[in-house]
């Protein structure tokens, strides 16, 4: 995918990426760089932090200060970076497993603190890196290598979870709906507090194959056919929304940001 943003923001000598052909993660990673380009941020003041998973490998390809951490822990590492240096724009890249299973507790607390971090969850409904085990977002009855008879867990709705835990900006888009995705990431980055953008990705290699979802193109078409923008949804009947999922901006309610609140405590001692 040659383009100006790729040349500018990717470590092009590290390409091609490790992702499978047709993986949705590349599209989402590129969308992040487009949003950064549009906002014109100082790239030397951007730190991108990730956990472990296929999605989390994205940091290696992005030409910023990048921190590829341990499984599930990207948010607490990012919290340290942000609180230590609030001048930095901190972006977290994480997967559905990374963010809501092993890292679930960190997620709700980062939301609650409303610390200035923009988190982009690459949700492919599966553990890709370890070979297709079911994740907290695998739909009920779908299959994974550890759910050969169908998954009996109920799936998390990551956006709703983040919004109710206190994130002040929340939106969802898909790898197919890239323009919406870019604008949500842009708005998320403009929000001083904690933003979460759920990016529906696709893993044709494991989730697709296990669940007979066809090839990469079929999976993107599925996203196109099943996503309904929240603004349109209000005018639709419950029957016509059956089997669909919502995309769009779910929450935008700025509140005081954590590190600026902390700065106020420091300032009390600077007054003389």
């Amino acid at each position: 995918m040659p383009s100006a943003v790729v040349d500018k923001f990717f470590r092009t000598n590290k390409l091609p990426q490790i992702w499978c052909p047709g993986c949705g993660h590349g599209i989402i990673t590129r969308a992040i760089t487009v949003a950064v380009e549009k906002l014109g941020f100082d790239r030397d003041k951007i730190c991108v932090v990730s956990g472990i998973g296929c999605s989390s490998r994205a940091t290696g390809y992005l030409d910023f200060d990048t921190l590829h951490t341990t499984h599930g822990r990207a948010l607490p590492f990012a919290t340290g970076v942000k609180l230590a240096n609030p001048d930095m724009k901190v972006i977290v890249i994480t997967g559905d497993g990374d963010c809501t299973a092993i890292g679930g507790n960190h997620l709700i607390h980062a939301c609650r603190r409303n610390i200035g971090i923009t988190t982009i969850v690459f949700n492919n409904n599966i553990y890709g890196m370890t070979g297709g085990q079911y994740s907290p977002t695998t739909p009920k009855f779908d299959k994974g290598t550890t759910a050969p008879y169908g998954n009996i867990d109920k799936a998390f709705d990551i956006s709703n979870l983040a919004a109710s835990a206190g994130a002040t900006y929340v939106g969802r888009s898909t790898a197919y709906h890239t323009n919406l995705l870019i604008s949500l990431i842009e708005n998320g980055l403009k929000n001083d507090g904690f933003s979460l953008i759920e990016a529906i990705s696709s893993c044709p290699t494991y989730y697709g194959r296990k669940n007979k979802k066809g090839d990469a193109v079929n999976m993107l078409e599925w996203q196109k056919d099943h996503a309904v923008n929240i603004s349109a949804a209000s005018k639709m009947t419950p029957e016509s929304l059956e089997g669909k999922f919502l995309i769009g901006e779910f929450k935008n309610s700025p509140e005081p940001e954590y590190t600026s609140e902390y700065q106020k405590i420091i300032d009390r001692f600077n007054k003389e």
Partner: protein
Amino acid sequence: MKRKARLMQGNEACVEGAIAAGMRFFAGYPITPSTEIAELSSEKLPCVGGKFIQMEDEIASMAAIIGASLTGLKSMTATSGPGFSLKQENLGYAGITEVPCVVVNVQRGGPSTGLPTSPAQGEIMQARWGTHGDHPVIALTPSSVRETFDLTIRAFNLSEKYRIPVILLMDEVIGHMRERVELPDTSELEIIDRKRPAGNKEDYKAYKADEDLIPPMANFGEGYRYHVTGLVHDETGFPSNSSVVADKLVRRLADKIEMHKDDIIQWEEQNTEDADIVIVSIGGVSRAADTAMKMLRSKGLKVGTFRPITVWPFPEKRLEELAEKVNTFVVAEMNLGQMVLEVERIIKNKAKIERVNKVNGEAIYPEEIVTKIEEVL
């Protein structure tokens, strides 16, 4: 300048030392008997422009201090027993990524939730091998309130100098003990900061070590735009599957500490010149060992003490030398025998080794060491 002596707890001396060393970031999660370190950090850090955060658990606290240190702030966390277990994965991360930070473990009775308010020394081996994979470790063991102050500074200095997480391995005796101490003026302290890169930002190779095996460290946010990963990485910091790269990295990390052992290792010994018997102990137990030595000396027995100040790396060379003349080493520790394994490994058959162990939640009393020595004589 006249300095006021102050009555102070070990945990408080730790925070005083940390701030004097330049600590400007602390992340923690409350746990007895280390909680005062978090409480005092939350109070004192904002006054010096530093940051404190209470994270959701110890895993997160360990992660946060690594993130903070990457931006250039000297960072610390403190915990006890169960929390130290939780820190292990990210402690290893700090090791392979060579991010300076200080991890305090005020040991309490274990295993598991164990004896929350009682002293123990059950994590000597965990401090060495708690995180997975081959890795070097520096762990310091103070045995007084004043020494806690000094060793906290040293922990920061060593971690900055060698780019390694340093463990301050305290025990409940030292953490909660109150002593009258006179702290030195900050101008008298030697403070070491991490080695910074020179030259072009574009040419910076984040993990290219100098001859001392230590790579200079840039801070995030300064325009170096480098990559940090817990995967095996080459000099540029990017992951590699090459067996040559893997071998080189894991060996360099170990050699980095091995090469500078003489600068790192510290111990204290008393009355060893003529000693037939030497009591080996660390931390809170060393106080009982001192008294025991005096009691036995007054009875005419030639007893000395040997106290590793860096329990890791262990003062191996000196112990080996002592074994040439000493008949019996008595290793006293508040566990079922951990440090003694290291002593046995070093001394082999050159001297007799006896053990004094206690795991009932009480400190070791001097009389217990005396009794043991009189028994084995």
